């Protein structure tokens, strides 16, 4: 309720600002002319602002706006007088030890340093928990992750899968990973993946990157090496597009590639699967958002032929409805 009120107030304020902004800009221009000794009546706003900037940086004499002009002269003179004495040797002692005693201070000091160290935190995110309506049989699907740890190193669990409503669990995988920050926007993820379904089940060693790319595109890409020596790769990309601050459209693509034919798993060499999803969620809070969407999947090459041989279709389109939540 409060959020709604705030939002509507903000919308009203923005609407008002849209009407009054040009007037404000003019007022600002006026302000600057006021500062300058020689007012130039119809100077464009941008140009006037640049003048101000110039005065800041160079103390230009043809616009002797006292405040800034003199300021920078003063400062330059000052700067020139700053010495270059080396820093003193950092003391090894702690001043409070002499007063409160080393033993009393040591524990408190350790606690102070610890309080500013890596903050241990956690997240459980169900990115997708949804019902998939399909001619081939309705299903429930999930995809999510949970982490626990600090800023740089975390324990990460990923899971995804799909189960037919009136049938078996068709796919279910779980990954246990160590996530390590390697760049401001990228984590290296190393660990194991275990496919409970389909059978015969498989174990993999996994290495991948989770990153935020430019344009706020999230990506997760990984290579998998199975206990049979097969190599697979998977890449996912998604983007949260804010239609409003509560209505978010998320396009998402996923590709699976294989380095070899794996007939017993119905996987062919090369591009094996592609998936494209478009989900529209209503985030009442960032922690809870119901959504609807559409999900399209297609198997390519030999993977497709294997599917046909099994009596399955190569592609499917599902309408989905679910909920995204985190805690």
């Amino acid at each position, binding site marked *: 309720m409060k959020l709604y009120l705030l939002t509507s107030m903000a919308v009203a304020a923005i609407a008002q600002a849209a009407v009054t902004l040009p007037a404000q800009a003019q007022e600002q221009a006026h302000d600057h002319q006021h500062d300058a000794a020689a007012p130039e009546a119809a100077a464009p706003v941008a140009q006037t602002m640049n003048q101000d900037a110039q005065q800041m940086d160079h103390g230009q004499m043809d616009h002797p706006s006292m405040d800034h002009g003199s300021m920078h002269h003063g400062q330059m003179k*000052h700067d020139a007088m700053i010495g270059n004495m080396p820093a003193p040797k950092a003391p090894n002692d702690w*001043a409070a030890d002499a007063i*409160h005693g080393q033993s009393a201070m040591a524990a408190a000091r350790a606690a102070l340093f610890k309080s500013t160290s890596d903050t241990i935190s956690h997240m459980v995110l169900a990115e997708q928990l949804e019902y998939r309506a399909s001619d081939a049989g309705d299903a429930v699907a999930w995809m999510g992750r949970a982490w626990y740890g600090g800023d740089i190193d975390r324990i990460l669990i990923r899971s995804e899968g799909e189960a037919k409503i009136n049938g078996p669990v068709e796919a279910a995988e779980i990954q246990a990973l160590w996530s390590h920050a390697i760049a*401001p926007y990228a984590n290296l993820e190393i660990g194991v993946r275990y496919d409970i379904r389909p059978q015969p089940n498989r174990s993999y060693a996994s290495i991948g990157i989770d990153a935020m790319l430019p344009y706020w595109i999230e990506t997760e890409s990984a290579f998998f090496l199975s206990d049979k020596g097969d190599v697979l790769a998977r890449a996912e990309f998604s983007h949260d*597009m804010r239609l409003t601050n509560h209505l978010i459209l998320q396009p998402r693509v996923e590709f699976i590639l294989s380095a070899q034919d794996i007939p017993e798993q119905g996987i062919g060499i090369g591009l094996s699967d592609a998936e494209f999803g478009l989900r529209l969620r209503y985030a009442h809070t*960032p922690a809870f958002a119901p959504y609807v969407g559409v999900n399209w999947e297609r198997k390519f090459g030999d993977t497709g032929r294997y599917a046909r041989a099994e009596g399955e279709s190569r592609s499917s389109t599902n309408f989905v409805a679910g909920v995204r939540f985190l805690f």
Partner: protein
Amino acid sequence: MNKMILDRRELIRAAAGLAGMASLGSMFPAWAQATSKGIAPTIGTLSGEDIALTVGHSEFTTGGKSGHAITVNGTLPGPLIRLKEGQRVRLSVANTLAEDTSIHWHGLLVPFQFDGVPGLSFPGIKPGETFVYDFPILHAGTYWYHSHSGMQEAMGQFGPIIIDPAGEDPVVYDREHVLMLSDWSFTHPHQLMTRLKQSGGYFNAQKQTVGGLLAGKDQPLKERMEWAAMRMDPTDISDVTGSAYRYLVNGHGLEENWTGLFKPGEKVRLRIINASAMTNFNFRIPGLSMKIVQVDGQHVEPVEVDEFQIAVAETYDVIVEPTEAQAFGIIGEAIDRSGLVRATLAPASGMVGAVPKLRARPLLGMKDMGMDHQMPAVLDLSQPDTSADHGSMKMRDPANAPGVKMSPAVATISPMPADRVGDRPTGLENVEHRVLRYSDLKSLTPHPDAPAPSRSIDLHLTANMERYMWSLDGERLSERTEPLAFRHMERVRINLINDTMMPHPIHIHGHFFELVNGQDAAKQPLKHTVNVLPGGKIAIDLTADALGDWAMHCHMMFHMDMGMFRIVKVRHEEGAPA
């Protein structure tokens, strides 16, 4: 509150507390009660040489909802401590919490062992213990006190301090009020931090949208794409916003409408203190001009303004002279415009000041990104391009900040930070009335001629907002145990360079420093906390005149807790005469 077993002594104390509350008729000290006639020298105020304070759990109510607070003497804010310059004071602080506590006297110059930072000045106050602070009061002004332990300050453990001058007060006034601004969340601060770790923009409900683009609001598409390519969000103004906070004046939310009384024609002194954990405010009283007479407890030449921005931990004393017998709204607006608090200045209780509409959420610009893009070349194309002198324009070039340890904790380095001491603060760049700039401030009395700084230090304020990591020079306190060392009485220029897109109120304990703001060196204002605008830099001159170990940190509580914190050590130089 939840403790089911009480011993007899606690029961008696609780009963006494209830009786005390009933007699006051409120959960607030007198000066902070819903309607205040002004600060009477003796009522609801703690004065004298021996003062007893008790830190404990309290229930706090605002907007009809109650939550758990940690308070001093049972109220939020705590009692006003009013002392006189030149006196001595003993403050006994008893801890009834189950965790350690502490009180830091923000802005007061005290011997380091009484500065109240656990692990640095003293061991902290253990549960059930009482610690006696004992120090002389060396200077007058408006200050405040707060816990320096855990998240207690964010939960209400703070209060105001007024030190009356020993001589004549250069500020003339008929009546005075304390206005203590704060932010309050019914969610525990640790939970707020968890949310920020999960998603740096969790509390920002004012991002740019496709709807806004179609309606022609905010940045045009081209600019949005340029910012998105850099993974930068121009709406990332505050970490925790009005979607989680209620904003308070003297512990009263907008609905409770704290009211300060005046008689038309009086000169009213308002002592404004920002005790927020995470909120910088734009402060104004529509209809009244404010004359700023003191900043961070230090007198300045009066400056008339209509609005100013008060960063976390700053204080501003202003004089207003309402001549009409009408109610005025006292407005503290969060700088991201996600919420505001209104209190009232009125000739009689029961009157209500108007609540203005929240203004449009501001957008950050190139300057906030550390790109001082005012390119003289725009005006004068005959000038040679000087941009090569300024190093690389890349957003994360280590060459632009050689002292910074590069790691995933540092997402950006300002390529070309502007000195922003003369800028209007974030979001007030274009408002139509008079707004305070730091460069407007002049010390009221000139300070004796100080020598030129013997050296200068660059200190970078660094962050990765996506990961919600905060540091100085790329390292948090726990990683950089090497202190900032100063020779006693040495004067040092410190360049605070903001490599983030958020403002950081940097506080140095135990000292006032001069803001290098373009005024004559003798008139540079003295401050204890300086707000460094996004992507910019500010220079301060510090004379290290206080021996001991001191804290230096960003006063945004979560930033400090994440390690945006350094230890300052001031010592006699070896071999120098003591």
